[in-house]
């Protein structure tokens, strides 16, 4: 979409405050990728595939359809905000261990939706898992292993909360 003159956007991305100059019609996904958060994949740009999913104040949104101007004052979490190779988030660990990743293009969206889901309820029903992930398309291995990864993530998070383990650290600059 073409846009007019720039406007100011104040937003926190992965816990870091940003004051950005954006085009008024820019979508959040493009703004994030220009900042280097390339884990946010712009796939269909129509809200069908879910590879651009990010969390805004903890809720999943398709960043290809979300005007960046609408997240003024919000907390945005991208996949880089969860963890990295050295210190992955339990949901990321679960996806790797369950073999729920093939090409990886849909994975950031899947992981973020799973994180939001397990924060909403720590023991979602299978129906609820299917509904939550229905906006994320995977064209590689199918969904069985992804649903297994959600179950595994549920166990890992439950174990972590029992053990009182600390949150994974912020991503290092190298990992971006």
């Amino acid at each position: 979409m073409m846009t007019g003159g720039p406007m100011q956007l104040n937003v926190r991305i992965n816990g870091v405050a940003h004051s950005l100059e954006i085009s008024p019609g820019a979508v959040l996904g493009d703004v994030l990728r220009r900042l280097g958060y390339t884990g946010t994949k712009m796939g269909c740009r129509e809200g069908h595939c879910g590879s651009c999913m990010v969390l805004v104040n903890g809720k999943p949104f398709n960043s290809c359809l979300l005007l960046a101007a609408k997240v003024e004052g919000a907390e945005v979490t991208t996949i880089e905000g969860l963890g990295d190779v050295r210190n992955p988030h339990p949901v990321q660990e679960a996806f790797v261990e369950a073999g729920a990743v093939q090409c990886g293009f849909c994975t950031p969206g899947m992981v973020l939706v799973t994180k939001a889901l397990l924060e909403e309820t720590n023991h979602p029903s299978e129906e609820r898992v299917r509904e939550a992930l229905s906006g994320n398309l995977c064209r590689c291995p199918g969904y069985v292993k992804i649903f297994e990864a959600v179950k595994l993530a549920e166990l890992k998070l439950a174990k972590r909360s029992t053990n009182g383990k600390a949150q994974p650290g912020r991503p290092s600059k190298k990992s971006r």
Partner: protein
Amino acid sequence: MPVTVTDYLRPSSLKEALALLAEDPAKTIAVGGGISVVLSGAPRRVRAVDLQHTGINEIKKTKDELCLGAMASLDDLVKSPLCGKFAGGVLCEGLRTAATEPIRRLITVGGNIVQCYYWATLPPLLIALDGRVHLRSVEHRRTVKASEFFARPPMRQLDRGELITEVSFPLLPKRVAAFEKLAKTSNDYALIHVVVSYVPKRGKVSDARVVVAACTNLPVRCAEVESYLEGQTINFAVAKEAGQLATHHVKLRGDFRASSEYRRRVLPVLVQRALLKAAKKQDDFITNR
């Protein structure tokens, strides 16, 4: 050339938003969730007025009505206990199928009805449940019955600088309703929507509404089917006949998603299912009373 947003304005009250819309109505658009702004292919340069902070997102129940603010998202509605209890839960049941959960967070009540894409879910529900659309501009307020509002494309119903602020449904505890949707997946674009509602009187149909959408350009009430159902007891044969009647009296669209011939074959089945589902709710209602 797609839409060019020249300015993005964030009014903090409805009054301020209406004043901004009135300043230059031809070049100013109201932004709800923003999807239609992002996806619009219309070559226009526009000022965008974001309604996010105008306070019109409330879902409330008054003595006589269920009121939905224009900026409430479809996901807010799906998760609202007030909506869940309304009309036997048919509102939530229908809207849950409108889109995926993240997209439902972006679709607003106002946006869904003013854009009124042929697959939109809220318009047929509004008509079938006797809804009303409340509009406001700097100069006036008015209320339009949903059936009149969707008689022509809603964009043409709006005066310059006018805004949908709320929709409301009368609380009719005795009315039973059912929703059916045909789509390739549970939350894909609808190929057919059917919503039926009626008031059971001694086991017979009274004040029926049979609304068909997604297979038509705008949602339509099937007057012939409604007349046929009046005074009938819903059973398989009556529901089947009603389905056949609907097919004969509705002009069906054909497009790249489904041909009109295909829709003609499926529509009677969905009308039949919706009526039998509503009759089941009627029976449950009587049993549980």
